């Protein structure tokens, strides 16, 4: 089995494990068959001729290992990368009147900063490595945005870092990788540091 297929198999295994822990056997069967299809499809194509897109949930330079790993895999399969950096935001958060007034201005400043300091260097890093890459800053809840993007782009894989998955908050409310493991529509790779 080539490395990519092994890697896919690991993705399948991970999801399988998660579903078992959810004790939803009906879902496991459906999910496994679906993932199986995806593996076959991927296996059937030549790595260098892929039209695949990988979605990379990129936090910042501390998550460089996620990007590096995704770049490495993309180079092998010829996939392109779609890097998204999500600024956590809830439309239901409460703001003061002053914050309401300044929100548009602050949003422009925040997204501008994230674009120039985080996203642009990440995209350039991938492009410099010879991988086709683009990126986008999004506002919202990370898991929701990543899933939505993966569906919209018909992406074949998601890459996410494991960071933040061990804290008390993550244990209570769930972390991004665990959330993706539950709802991701495509195989999801959780890259350890």
């Amino acid at each position: 089995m080539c490395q990519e297929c092994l890697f896919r198999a690991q993705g399948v295994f991970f999801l399988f494990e998660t579903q078992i822990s959810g004790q939803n056997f009906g879902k496991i069967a459906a999910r496994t068959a679906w993932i199986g299809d995806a593996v076959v499809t991927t296996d059937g194509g030549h790595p260098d001729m892929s039209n695949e897109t990988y979605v990379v949930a990129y936090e910042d330079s501390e998550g460089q290992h996620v990007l590096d790993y995704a770049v490495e895999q993309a180079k092998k399969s010829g996939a392109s990368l779609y890097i998204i950096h999500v600024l956590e935001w809830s439309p239901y958060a409460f703001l003061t009147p002053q914050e309401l007034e300044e929100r548009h201005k602050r949003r422009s400043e925040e997204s501008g900063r994230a674009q120039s300091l985080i996203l642009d260097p990440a995209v350039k890093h991938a492009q410099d490595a010879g991988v086709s890459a683009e990126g986008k800053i999004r506002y919202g809840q990370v898991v929701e945005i990543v899933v939505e993007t993966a569906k919209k782009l018909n992406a074949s894989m998601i890459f996410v870092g494991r960071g933040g998955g061990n804290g008390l908050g993550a244990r209570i409310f769930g972390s991004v990788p665990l959330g993706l493991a539950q709802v991701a529509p495509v195989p999801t790779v959780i890259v350890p540091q």
Partner: protein
Amino acid sequence: MSYHRFPAALAALCALSGPAAAQSIDETINRIFADYTGWYVGLIFADLPGTNFSWIALWLVVAALIFTFYFGFIQIKGFAHSIRLVKGDYSDPDDAGEVSHFQALATALSGTVGLGNIAGVAVAVGIGGPGATFWMVLAGLFGMATKFTECTLGVKYRNEYPDGTVSGGPMYYITKGFKERGLPGGPILAVLFCIFTILGALGGGNMFQANQAHAQISNVLGDFPGWITGLVIAVITFMVIAGGLKSIARVTEKVVPFMGIFYVLVSVVILIMNADMIAWAFGQIFAGAFTGLGVAGGFTGALIQGFRRAAFSNEAGIGSAAIAHSAVRTKEPVTEGYVALLEPFIDTVVICTMTALVIVITGVLNVDPETGLYVWNADAGRISTEGEVVGVALTSAAYAKAFGWFPVLLAVAVVLFAFSTMISWSYYGLKAWTYLFGEGAAKEIVFKVIFCLFIVIGASANLGPVIDFSDAMLFSMAIVNIIALYLLMPIVRGELGSYVERLRSGQITRYKG
């Protein structure tokens, strides 16, 4: 709104505050204000001949009725759409991170929901009987159309500056809207509105709140000088509004809505605990609405109290909500009108009704067992209550019958509501201030310092006439604002017609649901 006018309760509460040493200063200030402004206060709150119903309450209720008919009962026809807008069904995902409809509504509500919903209702039911609730709900339902009108205009005529900040409110729609329609007097009315807003913010939106907060704290902790409470609140407020200490503001903005939700939940639990009484309570409300159930003034008394409470509680027509709502991110001004109409619904129809139901159901209003009618305390001019308490104390007593710990929680809630209302009104006042004197850090800090000084004065002094004058200013805002709404309502109708048409034809995208 946390502001309300109920002299008996106010007098009782104000009596709790104010160190003796400050009495002479208080008296001097009171005398000066009474001498020079008494005539104006009397004019604003004058009763209609032969009634004890102030003409200003009628002004607000009639406006609400006119807008209701003019916009074809928008509060009923558009209610479901309002909910969908708040849920974000029509929000462009690419606009995520901007001010959502929900956020504009929540912020505006934190300035309105407060002491009025807790104490004011007790006064209305205490004087007008359970029937007052019926008229209060009815007036709240009509008030939804007023909010729709003013908040649509607030967004339509807001100023959007090159740096991305926005400013809106009646002063902007008065000047721009009047100009667009070729109407004279716009700039003068806008200036008048701003003067009234600044004075109203310093009084009803500040001194009154500080005074009530101190009264509640001293109720729980024992009597102590009001200036201490005032100084603490003033320092915190100054740090928030001038020092950019956003964390405190955020905490308050988060806690206040939860306090509101918790208040409603506790009310629901009490109603469930007394489920067998609910039908009886509604019977009392409906019967009282038309017969008075022996309460002095009969059904007119109930109507007057109910209408007055609703009109004074939800700020519909005052114009302040239009300032808060104008920051929302939307291409369609009407959408914010739809969202804003939920405000009187939540404030008056839901929260005020909960308070009223709990007061009726828990039996804190004394009933004559022989006649089944409420016992009238002629000396006090209200229904006799257990322990003869009024205002906040009556609400507190009603809830305490179910949960003994509730009065402490209520005291915390009152202080938080007061603080949140102060933050909101400091902003409304500042917007009026900068409209008059121009933008700029130096000009803004002057207003902020004045605002905080008034917190100390409000908490430490017993300034009845000053607060009365400030109340008169708040309702003067409504005079100017509603005149403008009458003149500009055809523009809102045009906006509404176009929006509904595009909604039907599918031109307006629904992103979710």
